[in-house]
């Protein structure tokens, strides 16, 4: 096999974070190379640097031995790198043929300016024939003069692949291509991918379905926190090692401090019985005691966030019952969850949590004010006192309570959201990836806050991919896989290594796209 693409020391900076930090990645001709990693690991940033959607801040990329620096996706296409995204990036309002050939439609004559109007009249017949020929190579015989919207996602995906390969022909990047396909369609897609591999293309396959990765990939590269976590031939890499790579647990790391056990007679703060939602979370049962921190672990797509959103009523449950502090709780929407004494800090604080233009004070008071209703505003002096109090207690680094939250660092934004919920004094607080996307130094501070909250008797459900940290403060860890709870680890078993084993154990059936 020969080397086709080589990326060395790729670096990409975003305000406040290093999305890529010296990442190496290479591709051989005729291979399917899986790119794996959790959310925020840098997969999509790496792809965007290769396809010209982002410009890299450092490092080199060589294709066929020549340095490249694509500025736009069109640039990358011309160089030979084509991409197909999960949400098919074609135009449903155009015909299949137009989608395939836009940018190089066959024309006759040249009465209009070449650059501006495209050089003349489209030869409709030739366009349809060219499109049909192209699709015939993929065993697809459809009416190419119909709008793309008339066909299923699986067909649209093949059209997108056909377009990308026809235009680029060297590297094909497939970003989560199987996410919306059923098992039979996945098999069809895999046949196409194998066929392309046979033609000498290098295919980058991004997916969080490990079974599919093992079914199709020749090599695997794993990213974590914007760095290379490892790279190996798929055949030489067992599942356990792969999961370990993704979650970044080093075997030699000794497990440090443990959370002090919660007294067995502590009252139950929140209890769930057969609680679930079809298609999102399989029914589970869980009782969280006062002062207990329960960890929720699993890979991306295992149903962790879905569990949190079902509990909090964002996507309401359709089976089971819940009790809060011993009383039945409805939990049909977030308002009812808040009334039951629940709180939720979502994973993506940029879109779901903070309001960047509002000040620290306003963000902290948002939920409290919402509960009081707009007819009873919190007095301004009181607001200032509350904000100052929480800025001190959580050590929020801001020059003043009147600074827009958007200008603070990620860790401090996270603390502002925490403050918002603490102010509500919830009995049961859900934290979804509380330490994601904030710098390493701030991790320890968030963990300190979590431990303090437990000590004061609050119950927590913490979703985290940082297994080392999680096993440090969690009293119990539930492990999810394929949207169902598969293990509960208590006592001595609350250790990063045991969690990884639980995640990797007993592979689900092959091709499991569902």
């Amino acid at each position, binding site marked *: 096999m020969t080397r086709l693409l080589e990326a060395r020391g790729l670096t990409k900076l975003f305000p406040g974070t290093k999305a890529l930090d010296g990442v190496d990645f290479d591709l051989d001709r005729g291979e399917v190379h899986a790119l794996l990693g959790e959310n925020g690991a840098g997969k999509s940033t790496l792809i965007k640097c290769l396809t010209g959607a982002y410009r890299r801040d450092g490092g080199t990329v060589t294709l066929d031995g020549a340095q490249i620096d694509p500025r736009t996706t069109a640039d990358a296409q011309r160089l030979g790198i084509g991409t197909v995204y999960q949400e098919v990036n074609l135009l449903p309002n*155009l015909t299949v043929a*137009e989608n395939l050939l*836009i940018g190089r439609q066959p024309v006759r004559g040249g009465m209009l300016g070449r650059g501006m109007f495209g050089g003349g009249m489209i030869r409709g017949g030739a366009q349809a024939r060219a499109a049909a020929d192209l699709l015939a190579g993929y065993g697809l015989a459809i009416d190419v003069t119909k709008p793309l919207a008339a066909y*299923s996602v699986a067909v649209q995906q093949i059209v997108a692949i056909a377009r990308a390969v026809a235009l680029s022909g060297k590297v094909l990047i497939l970003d989560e291509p199987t996410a919306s396909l059923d098992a039979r369609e996945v098999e069809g897609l895999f046949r196409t991918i194998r066929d392309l591999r046979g033609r000498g293309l290098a295919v980058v396959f991004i997916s969080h379905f490990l079974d599919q990765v093992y079914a199709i990939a020749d090599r695997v590269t794993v990213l974590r926190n914007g760095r290379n976590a490892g790279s190996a031939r798929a055949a030489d890499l067992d599942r356990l090692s792969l999961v370990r790579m993704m979650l970044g647990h080093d075997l030699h790391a000794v497990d440090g401090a443990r959370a002090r056990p919660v007294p067995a007679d502590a009252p139950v703060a929140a209890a769930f019985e057969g609680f679930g939602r079809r298609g999102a979370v399989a029914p589970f049962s869980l009782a969280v005691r006062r002062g207990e921190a329960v960890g929720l672990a699993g890979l991306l797509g295992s149903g962790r966030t879905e569990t949190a959103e079902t509990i909090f009523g964002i996507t309401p449950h359709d089976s089971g019952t819940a009790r809060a502090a011993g009383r039945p709780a409805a939990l049909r929407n977030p308002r009812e969850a808040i009334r039951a004494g629940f709180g939720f800090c979502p994973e993506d604080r940029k879109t779901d949590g903070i309001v960047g233009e509002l000040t620290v004070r306003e963000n902290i008071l948002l939920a409290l004010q919402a509960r009081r209703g707009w007819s009873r505003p919190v007095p301004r002096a009181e607001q200032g006192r509350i904000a100052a109090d929480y800025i001190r207690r959580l050590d929020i680094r801001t020059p003043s309570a009147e600074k827009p939250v958007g200008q603070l660092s990620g860790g401090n934004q996270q603390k502002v959201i925490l403050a918002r919920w603490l102010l509500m004094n919830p009995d049961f607080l859900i934290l979804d990836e509380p330490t994601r996307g904030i710098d390493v130094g701030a991790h320890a501070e968030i963990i300190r806050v979590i431990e303090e909250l437990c000590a004061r008797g609050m119950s927590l459900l913490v979703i985290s991919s940082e297994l080392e940290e999680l096993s440090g403060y969690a009293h119990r860890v539930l492990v999810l896989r394929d949207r169902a709870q598969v293990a509960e680890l208590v006592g001595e078993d609350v250790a990063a290594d045991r969690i990884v084993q639980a995640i990797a154990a007993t592979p689900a059936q092959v091709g499991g796209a569902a």
Partner: protein
Amino acid sequence: MSARFLPLLATCAIFVAAYALAWMQYPNILSTRVMGNLLTDNAYLGIAAVGMTIVILSGGIDLSIGSVIAFSGVFIAVMLRDTGLHPLAVFALLLALTTAFGLCMGALIHALEMPAFIVTLAGMFMARGLAYVLSIDSVPIDDPFFDALSSSYYLLPGKGRFTLIAGIMLLVVLAGSLLIHRTPFGTRVLAIGGDARTAGLLGVPVARTIVAVYGISGFCAGLAGIVFAIYTSAGYSLATVGTELDAIAAVVIGGTLLTGGSGTVPGTLVGVLIMGLIQTYIVFDGTLSSWWTRIVIGALLFVFIVLQKGLLRIAAGTARG
């Protein structure tokens, strides 16, 4: 026939049905004289609406065209009155001006990432203001060449007149149809109207195309202004207020999706003719207030919006099936 032309068929069916209804009541309506007048009276609107169709297909809107038409009329009248320029030279100058005006708006819309609505609203005020600056009063056009233009027509059998300006309008519709439905440029416009970001990812030159689209609309508005000046033999800064809204109505009745990406140029011509037909019917009736035109057009717009929603549902349904 692909689903793309379904709304066009619906528009044509409505036009034919409406014409048949009117004909049953007033047999005279089916004559070359009425048809010729229908084309002549709506020539300026038809030309402006072709530009509007292209803008709307690209996902934008151009609110400036009514003002640009008025400005054009005043500009032509004042230039012919105060300078010795030949009308053709004045036309060329005007078209260059309005095209540049459109190009500037397109460049602003693209460069500042501003909504087309607000940029062209500013353009609407500016063009109207410029017309006032040139002259507040109606300026009559008195030029032999101009008179020749306004009185040149082809006599149809049945004493109908197929005028020069009606011919210009049909030529513009033809050119617009070919441009949108038969050139790569047209595919780009539809692509951008479908989803500008995706179009960019597919390698469509979005900036260039958007700027060109507004340039074309400016050109069409200028040409509509010339035709309107020929039609009225005067330039008046208060003329054609709200013509942009008539044009938008004609485009939507013609089956073009207001959100862009789907529609046809010939449909817009039929949309213009439907609006003209309603007007003609009211003239024939003689007892109805002319405001009934507005009411019927309003009702028709609602029907078309519902029809478009329905078609979108059907399209989405087949995609799932």
